[in-house]
């Protein structure tokens, strides 16, 4: 490095900017932007992923997606996860609010509520397979509580399967929202609370007029993530049901179409549609946030 220090600081600066950004930029282009371009290209072909030449088929793949109900039906499954996100954020906000005030065993509760977020996705899938089994945890608990009549085949009943899976998803991600909200709430100065108490505000007033406005941006950010999260659901249903019984999500379907049935062109078109939806939602969200200002 002796040679470097002989250069003038101006030249050093150019050199170091180039050197330090080289690897990240190459990785960024190769694994973020190139795939997007390739994905658009594949989406207009009937490529199977193996053959040497790609045949361009125009908008055929897109026609297939929008006209064949079996391809579009998976979005209905996303709705379950989308609604579940609101439950998840509501719970997270509730727990974050009460745990930011004085509570006994505060750190224990924080740790326990947050821990599930750190767990391995496959492990969580198995844990909830065990939980929802006909003679599993949930049914045993119901029996114990005298609610034996409520016992269900949670993962075999097509009306319940997605609700059960979405519940597992809430269990998994609630802690993440919780810790983010907790961080945001704790950055509010305690003098504001004190001042409001002098003015006679109760906890609800404080929540409504102090906490909620100051975490609004994070709440909105989480909403955006909720949409793309709901469409991008993969691990829990894949590990638990393999997408059977009407629980297949868009990503499971894309992976199946691409790698099981070798229809890479069609799978790419599906991915383009998915990306389009995420972009539209993000833009909508941006516009709505701006209008509020």
């Amino acid at each position, binding site marked *: 490095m002796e040679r470097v220090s002989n250069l003038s600081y101006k030249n050093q600066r150019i050199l170091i900017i180039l050197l330090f950004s080289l690897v990240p930029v190459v990785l960024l282009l190769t694994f973020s932007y190139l795939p*997007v371009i390739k994905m658009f290209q594949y989406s207009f072909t009937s490529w199977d992923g193996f053959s040497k030449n790609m045949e361009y088929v125009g908008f055929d793949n897109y026609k297939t997606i929008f006209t064949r109900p079996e391809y579009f039906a998976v979005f209905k499954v996303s709705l379950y996860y989308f609604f579940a996100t609101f439950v998840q954020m509501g719970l997270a906000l509730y727990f974050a609010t009460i745990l930011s005030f004085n*509570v006994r065993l505060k750190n224990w509760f924080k740790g326990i509520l947050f821990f599930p977020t750190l767990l391995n996705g496959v492990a969580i899938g198995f844990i909830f397979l065990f*939980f929802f089994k006909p003679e599993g945890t949930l049914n045993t608990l119901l029996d114990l509580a005298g609610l034996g009549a409520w016992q269900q085949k949670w993962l075999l009943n097509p009306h319940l399967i997605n609700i059960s899976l979405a519940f597992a998803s809430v269990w998994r991600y609630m802690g993440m929202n919780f*810790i983010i909200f907790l961080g945001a709430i704790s950055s509010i100065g305690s003098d504001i609370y004190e001042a409001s108490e002098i003015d006679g505000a109760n906890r609800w007033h404080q929540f409504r007029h102090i906490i909620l406005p100051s975490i609004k941006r994070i709440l909105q950010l989480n909403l955006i993530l909720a949409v793309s999260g709901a469409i*991008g659901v993969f691990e829990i249903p894949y*590990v638990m049901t393999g997408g059977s019984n009407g629980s297949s999500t868009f990503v499971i379907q894309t992976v199946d179409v691409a790698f099981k049935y070798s229809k*890479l062109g069609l799978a790419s078109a599906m991915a383009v549609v998915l990306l389009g939806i995420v972009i539209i939602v993000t833009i909508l969200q941006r516009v709505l946030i701006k209008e509020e200002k």
Partner: protein
Amino acid sequence: MHTIKYSAASFFKYLTLVFGALAALIPIIVVFFASLKTNTEYANTGPLTLPENWLNFSNYTKAFVDGNMLLGFMNTIIIVLISIAGATLTGSMMAYILARFKFKGSKLLMSAFLLATLIPGVTTQVATFQIINSLDLFNTRWAPILMYLGTDIIAVYIFMQFLDSISESLDESAMLDGASYWTIYWRIILPLLSPAIVTVIIVKGVNIYNDFYTPFLYMPKSSLQVVSTALFKFKGPYGSQWEVICAAIMIAIIPTLIAFIALQKYIYNGFAQGSVK
């Protein structure tokens, strides 16, 4: 009247907290119970029944050996170590030049990284697969490593935030002593960034350890299995031996639990820093 209302609210508060804690713990605890039961015991008792012998680790041995979990841990550790070392270096380098130098294209660079995070990774998997394939990286450890290394705006953000709190006069006084920018980065900035590095290591480490999608798709070869994919293999062949599956689940969870207890303080900071703003 006031006190009655107050204590009712307080009771409700603790009731919900206890309920929340139970909801978080019970699914894991029953798996732990089952992992300590013998086959016949498992068949004849409910999930909430305590195991007869708390030291019956035979399921763990079986899961560890049959599932070849040691191999899974080895591969995971290799991938985690290389990815984290690389991500820390590249992330801190990017953050250093972006935070300290104003140059043409620095805004463009920043937005290029930001925009990339808005593209959900799952959408481009099919095309990424072809790229990995054409680089001859399919079924090698390099496939996930390169993908974990690339485009990590969160690490860059954490480092940049932290760099703002390191006074630039430190850089300047080092320059008066004739230090090169490289020396400043390597000798001054990097050591001072260590709290941020711990944060990045935890956030990335947790993500990589728990990731299933990437190794499942890009390293199906069984000699390259990681903890996630090793665990996934228990599905199917062990359908009737839930006590063994439960032991395998616990084997995958225990490292997380230990890390969580040891690093609790940093973990909270890390996730708050990594996710906000």
